[in-house]
């Protein structure tokens, strides 16, 4: 059993307790406007091009069989629409200006990577976090990884958007130690506008998670004017407090992934970061409705 992994991030400190390794599975059923890892969305390998790293050596020009590279001034630019993401240019690029995203790995390969920091987990109370894309889209692959973690006594966390068939989600919730559960908007129409899908399944799965033995931490990517309204925060508070949650982890919009949009030839997302005062008043809304916030 294998799946596409686009990144394995060691020493993650905000995806669960202690020092962790986060395994990012490629592919996601949602298309959030603000997605900070646009290369995580597609279920196929992709080639990213970082123009500022290109020295114009021309090796990719020779390697590309699809005419997707052309000399443009001092760099080897991308010909729009031609790249088939075959990755031949990536192998020849000396500067990592052309970088591949998505490596097929089997369960054992992933576990071998995860085990490399075992002593750090032991000494910090950490473990492994599966993120994405959407890790539950990995289906059996994720379940097998979780089962392996349980077998080896490794603390396992799943960072999910909740958009997942209900039966599968119940199995995930039953096997993971911790679920970081993203809630983006409580209104189905607004949710569909922001992420491409409504939130019916997501909210069902959140209730399943809350009833499961796994620890659950609700999270919210907070976007100025998109999901921080009084109404949405009130609805969120009603749901959470009703299920016994008094705290939510909030991730204010940041621009850290924007360069990757350019690298994939995609337009920059139509969202912006908070001004400090604006963020303060957004957080005050949560407090007014009885929710503690932890900014991560």
């Amino acid at each position, binding site marked *: 059993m294998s799946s596409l992994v686009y990144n394995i991030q060691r020493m993650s400190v*905000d995806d669960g307790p*202690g*020092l962790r390794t986060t395994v990012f599975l490629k592919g996601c059923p949602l298309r959030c406007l603000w997605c*900070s890892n646009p290369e995580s969305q597609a279920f196929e390998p992709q080639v990213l091009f970082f123009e500022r790293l290109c020295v114009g050596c021309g090796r990719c020009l020779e390697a590309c069989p699809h005419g997707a590279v052309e000399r443009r001034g001092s760099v080897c630019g991308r010909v729009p629409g031609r790249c088939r993401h075959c990755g031949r240019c990536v192998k020849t690029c*000396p500067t990592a200006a052309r970088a591949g995203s998505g490596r097929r790995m089997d369960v054992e390969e992933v576990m071998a990577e995860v085990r490399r*920091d075992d*002593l750090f987990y032991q000494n910090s109370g*950490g473990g492994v976090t599966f993120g994405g894309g959407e890790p539950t889209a990995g289906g059996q692959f994720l379940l097998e990884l979780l089962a392996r973690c349980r077998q080896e006594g490794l603390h396992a966390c799943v960072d999910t958007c909740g958009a997942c068939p209900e039966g599968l989600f119940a199995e995930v919730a039953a096997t993971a130690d911790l679920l970081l559960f993203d809630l983006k908007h409580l209104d189905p129409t607004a949710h569909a506008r922001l992420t491409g899908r409504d939130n019916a399944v997501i909210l069902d799965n959140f209730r399943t998670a809350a009833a499961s033995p796994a620890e659950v931490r609700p999270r919210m990517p907070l976007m100025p004017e998109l999901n921080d309204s009084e109404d949405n925060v009130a609805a969120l508070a009603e749901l959470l407090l009703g299920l016994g949650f008094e705290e939510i982890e909030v991730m204010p919009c940041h621009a850290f992934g*924007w360069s990757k949009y350019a690298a994939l030839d995609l337009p920059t997302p139509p969202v912006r970061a908070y001004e400090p005062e604006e963020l303060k008043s957004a957080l005050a809304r949560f407090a007014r409705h009885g929710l503690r916030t932890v900014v991560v």
Partner: protein
Amino acid sequence: MTAVSVETPAAPAQIFAFPAKRPNSYDLDWSSAERRLKEIKDFLLAAPQTMDPERLKFLLEVYEERQGEAPVIVRARLLERVLTKKTIFLDDNPVVGALTGVRAGVYAYPEWSADWIKDEIDLAKMGSLGEIKISAETQDLLKQVYAKWKGRTVFDQANRGYQELYGEDPKRLFKAGALFEGPAYTTGTGAVDYRRAIHEGLGSIIDEIDRRVAALPKRAGASAALAFYRAAKISLSAAVAHANRYADLAAQEARRAPTPARQAELLEIAEVCRRVPEHPARNFREAVQSFWFVHLVQEIEQMGCAVSPGRYGQYMQPFYEKDLAEGRLTREEAVTLLSFQWLKHSELAIYQGLSNALALSGHTGQTITIGGLTAEGEDASTELEEVLMDVQIRLRNIQPTLSLFYHPKMKESYLLKAVEVVRGGSGQPQWLNNRLAVERALSRFSDSGITIGQARNCGNFGCVATGVLDEGCYFAVGATLNLAKFVELTLNDGLDPLTKKRLGPQTGPAAQFQSFEELYEAFLVQLDHGARQQRRYSNLGCLAKEATVPGPYRSSLYGGCLEKGLPEEAGGARFSQALDIVAGGVDAANSLLAVRSLVFEQGLTTMAELLAALQANFEGFEALRRQCLAAPKHGNDDPTADALVKRLYRDVDRLYTAHGPDYLGRAPRVDAFSLSYHNLFGGLMGALPNGRQSGRALTDGSVSATPGTDVQGVTALIKSAAGAVDTVRYNSNHFNVKFLPQALEGPKGARTLLALIKTYFDLGGSHIQFNCVDSDVLKEAQTKPDDHKNLVVRVAGFSAYFTRLDHGVQDEIIKRTQYN
């Protein structure tokens, strides 16, 4: 109840708001303390250092007057002359005693080397606090001293000996950056037995000398011991006289003090200086002053890197405890008094020529060991050590430095305090692995009958090396070997591309190597040649020091010297180590890795093309340079790359130790650290296959990653670093990591840091130091990315290299740092 607060200190703003004087507190004018501390610190940061000519004058006089006497006696007479005749003064610091006759003064020590006087007299001189001023009078004296000492200095003797014995001018090796001329410079040698000096007084040591002289059989061969005892007594008596001069001066100034408060303070200073260091200190105030005199006189005798105060927070704890209990001192007052002492340490500085300045960056290595174990194996840390950490948080001084000897029995509150110091950004404390320091001591001195209790009394000497405190000194040492240079020689058939001289054997044109193993074998031949040169030169240097500049004062304070009747330079101290240093190891390994990967494994280039690129300093070979940079590197938890790093360091150890016992007749051991050797050596080398361009600094530390080349994150870096050298056989590994304080935020950040340290030590790491940076450094990193390649920042939950982020993201992080 009038319990003394031993909890966390109050906020700095309140520390110095002292209430009315308590009846039995010291006569120190606490109310003006904060202002005075600030003025002294501002002065040190702004004032130019001045080279004080007095020592040069005394040097000329004493060597003239004492012609024909035993060198150890002449050295004692010189120290005596300096201590009893130099100009002394009081500034606003209640801890008294300065290195020279002027504030922020430096001495020259031309007995070690006088070459720089001739070669660099018109160049600007940079010391630890900035440029050093040399007056016309001093210039003139320097020239007179040069005329007297040229050809007779330690450096000259070692060079002449080497030339005569081995038929080669060793200066060629120094000019090419293959070796550093260690014997040309003064040096500290570790931590003397401060506990005894302060608790029993120098008078008790003088008494011991008298007893030993009386008991010594007056037979053939006894003259050396007799001379040493006599020299030690002269030196110790001069140290007592030195303190009494300050007592006289304080009493005199008290008579015309501007305020009653200052008058009382001066009278107390006079009383304290009359008492210590001759007699046992009776309270914390006396103990601080006694410590300072004992320490200062070592620096006056031979101001050099690594005069280390040892376990200060432990031998001073009884005085501190007693003062607290008897209401003489509060914790806040202790912070103040220690802050005054700390500024004294900062004022000490040295100048001995450009090469030394480049290699040491003015570092004085006054390292205090904190933590560790007691002789019985219990946690030795003290409350006073937490006070020392508060002083560091407050002052952010660069001297003295704190070295925390970590072990699993340490209190959580103590460790969290240490993390707070790390967050302060001064790179302190550095963390050392206590388990390894004990193992080292046991393995080095098992044949000398060391007990586990003695081995547990380990500590830090100078920068990152460890040894036994109180009775062990560190011969630091001969010539430092630049490992990267031997890769350069291997690629050039033994010829130095910089000086065009033949420095190594002919191992064949590199373009003809058919495999990586052939290249590596040639490297070993070059390295073996270098290791032999290093051992030979170091031994001659140590012999020249022993013959010319033995230090009777500091020797008398090391356990073992009086017993054996030998100065420490002759191996008097009980658990001495003679270690040679190697630097540039990571650049050597990364260069070999790049050649193996690009030429022999991937075939991406040929050796001929690579050599051409190196010769051209990569100009016109940018794509190849990028490939060199992208080749496997140390610091990524890459088993194949790490195996070569380990192999290289094992081979260095094997080749070095193959050349017979060390200077002290023990099994030889190597040390691996950089001080600023990487800076000096880098300036003397051409381009390297690791992608480094000509003249740029080499990688710092001995197991740090080359900036920007560890791309798997800090856990991977820690694993590679911990495994690079055998940290029991090597006397140190040296590992620097840069962090933003924000990455250590809150209790969770503190625990993250402690987990990283513990894991590194579990895996065998010996030394780790975290440098925290602020938003100004980040802004500089934006404009000079090459100087800040290894700057790690936390981005959205994980860590990333700052300079590789987009400019916009960098701006975001700078903003975030400023908010925090």
